[in-house]
């Protein structure tokens, strides 16, 4: 799956709501952003109940599932979202905590410019509308790792809304076909992270670390089912899924669970569930205290966040104090979808090839370096990079950066092939030698192993002639009209030349001889 270049590491959090499947959105206003293992409660927004005037009979109507993902991604920054303490992994507990982070009375949040820029970049990369004015709110709940008793988030008016992301789904035989799909992004918001809780059940206590730099990408999934044409069903939230594989399993399980429940006349509760990895099922985490009410209120210590563009930028403004959306847009690197399109147009490759090139770290750069240095056709380069080169990497579980073959080496090899100095089979042999990391160039390997294509057509003709004489039955088969017999002959000649003859030329010579 193609991933845009949104790798966030650090403090402060970005949220996106991605909608999968059509239909109207879940009216989700209150995401529960807990980092601990415990329940925080559910959304304060009531879902529309399923219209159940009649119990649906099994298999009577089709079911449609609606899935919304809440993705928590940490921002790559030096300091935190609202304070100047450092963002770093694996630091001693509470060593990266300022007075504000510890929620000491009298401290105030101060917004980190870099985090705002990161949010705008993310919004632009995901085709969102950037809100020139966005607001901060307090979301209240009680937990030991949230010393203030509230989390600063953007519930009413987030920084970016209504975006989309194009991605590829592998399908078809051998998963080689890539189908482009689009998912809607409901919104992106900046918010604080809570601390980390370590539960010590033995001593009946919880240890709190307020450093808050976890460096993970976390996803919560919201799932409901309904019959197409009817209102959306009650949704459940499945929290803290840390891998794509388990995310998919949890969603599949939950969809089926809800369908089964409803088809058996049961009802779906608007609740939070957790995914049990070993059992492969979701389980209710319902807090016995009942529904959570986050008592959202505007963050009184932060004015609205105002962003500008080239046209609205106030004259004479301190550049440090204003954020120009257009300027940030210019700093965006080429986005993957644009790169893929360019590769297809420029090099005539298939869409699935472009996905593969972008999905492997360093592979695109490798490919482009080979292209730069070789005379060979782009299609040949594509084929060698994606099939041969990538094949070897995968077999030995190596990253592109660990490859024993450099782009220059592959380029030289492809030049030898292109100039018909060596055959395709010989080229594969050379590649295998290169992989052994013995420091030899393709040219050296070719001469050492005498892999040069036979230049001497005369000698080749003689060889063909003698081969035909030595195998009269094959020649008779051919004359009778058996097309496969020629391959046998070609094979014999090739063997005799130790793969140094171009099979196409052998075929041509043989055919000429046979017709004469």
């Amino acid at each position, binding site marked *: 799956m193609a991933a845009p270049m949104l790798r966030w590491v650090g403090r402060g959090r970005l949220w996106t709501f991605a909608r999968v499947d059509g239909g109207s959105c879940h009216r989700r206003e209150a995401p529960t952003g807990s980092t601990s293992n*415990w*329940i925080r409660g559910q959304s304060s927004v009531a879902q529309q109940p399923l219209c159940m005037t009649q119990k649906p009979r099994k298999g009577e109507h089709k079911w449609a599932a609606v899935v919304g993902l809440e993705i928590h991604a940490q921002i790559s*920054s*030096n*300091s935190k979202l609202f*304070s*100047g*303490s*450092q963002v770093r992994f694996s630091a*001693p*507990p*509470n*060593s*990266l*905590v*300022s*007075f504000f*982070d*510890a929620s*000491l009375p009298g401290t105030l949040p*101060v*917004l*980190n*410019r*870099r*985090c*705002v820029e990161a949010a705008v970049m993310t919004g632009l990369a995901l085709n969102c509308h950037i809100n020139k004015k966005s*607001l901060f709110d307090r979301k*209240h709940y*009680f*937990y*030991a*790792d949230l010393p203030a008793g509230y989390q600063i988030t953007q519930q*009413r008016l987030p920084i970016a809304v209504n975006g989309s992301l194009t991605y590829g789904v592998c399908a078809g035989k051998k998963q080689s076909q890539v189908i482009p799909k689009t998912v809607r992004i409901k919104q992106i918001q900046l918010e604080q992270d809570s601390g980390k*809780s370590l*539960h*010590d*059940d033995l001593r*009946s*206590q*919880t*240890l*709190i*670390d*307020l450093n808050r730099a976890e460096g993970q990408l976390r996803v919560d999934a919201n799932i409901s089912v309904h019959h197409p044409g009817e209102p959306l069903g009650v949704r459940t939230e499945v929290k803290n899924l840390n891998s794509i594989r388990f995310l998919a399993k949890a969603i599949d399980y939950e969809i089926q669970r809800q369908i089964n429940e409803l088809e058996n006349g049961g009802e779906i509760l608007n609740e939070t569930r957790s995914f049990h990895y070993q059992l492969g099922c979701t389980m209710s985490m319902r*807090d*016995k*205290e009942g529904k959570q*009410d986050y*008592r959202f209120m*505007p963050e*009184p210590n*932060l*004015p*609205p*966040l*105002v962003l500008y563009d080239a046209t609205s930028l106030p004259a004479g403004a301190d550049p*440090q*104090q204003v*954020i120009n959306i257009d300027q940030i847009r210019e700093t965006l690197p080429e986005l993957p979808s644009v790169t893929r399109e360019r590769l297809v147009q420029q090099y005539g490759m298939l869409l699935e090839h472009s996905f593969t090139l972008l999905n492997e770290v360093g592979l695109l750069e490798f490919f482009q370096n080979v292209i730069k240095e070789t005379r060979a056709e782009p299609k040949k380069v594509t084929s060698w990079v994606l099939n041969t080169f990538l094949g070897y990497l995968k077999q030995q579980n190596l990253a592109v950066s660990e490859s024993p073959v450099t782009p220059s080496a592959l380029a030289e090899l492809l030049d030898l092939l292109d100039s018909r100095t060596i055959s395709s089979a010989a080229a594969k042999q050379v590649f295998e030698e290169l992989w052994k990391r013995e420091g030899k160039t393709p040219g050296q390997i070719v001469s050492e192993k005498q892999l040069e294509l036979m230049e001497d057509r005369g000698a080749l003709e003689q060889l063909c002639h003698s081969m035909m004489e030595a195998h009269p039955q094959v020649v008779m088969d051919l004359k009778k009209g058996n097309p496969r017999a020629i391959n046998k002959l070609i094979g014999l000649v090739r063997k005799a030349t130790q793969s140094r003859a171009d099979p196409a030329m052998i075929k041509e010579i043989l055919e000429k001889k046979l017709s004469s």
Partner: protein
Amino acid sequence: GFTSKADPQGSGRITAQVIEHLERLALVDFGSCEAVARLEKAIAFADRLRAVDTDGVEPMESVLEDRCLYLRSDNVVEGNCADELLQNSHRVVEEYFVAPPGNISLPKLDEQEPFPHS
């Protein structure tokens, strides 16, 4: 709003159920009649806002709406004071704050001492 939930007739009384809900949400103990009466008076006071006709007027989001939100440069300038912070904690284990385990359930209303609410 709360007025209608507490008392549709508008006499401004808050039910025991609402008090229980508020106590759970805010972890505030309305331990006495006077506290509830104070709350009811506060709500009545705030309800006077409804006397103002706000049709077609955009609500104010923040009293700071005319202020510029200050943007801090992304530099590390604080932190590294674990010892100082941990001194505020009643209990400490190594460099961790110690808190009671998880969420402790509030006693149910009927388990509490009878609350004088009339």
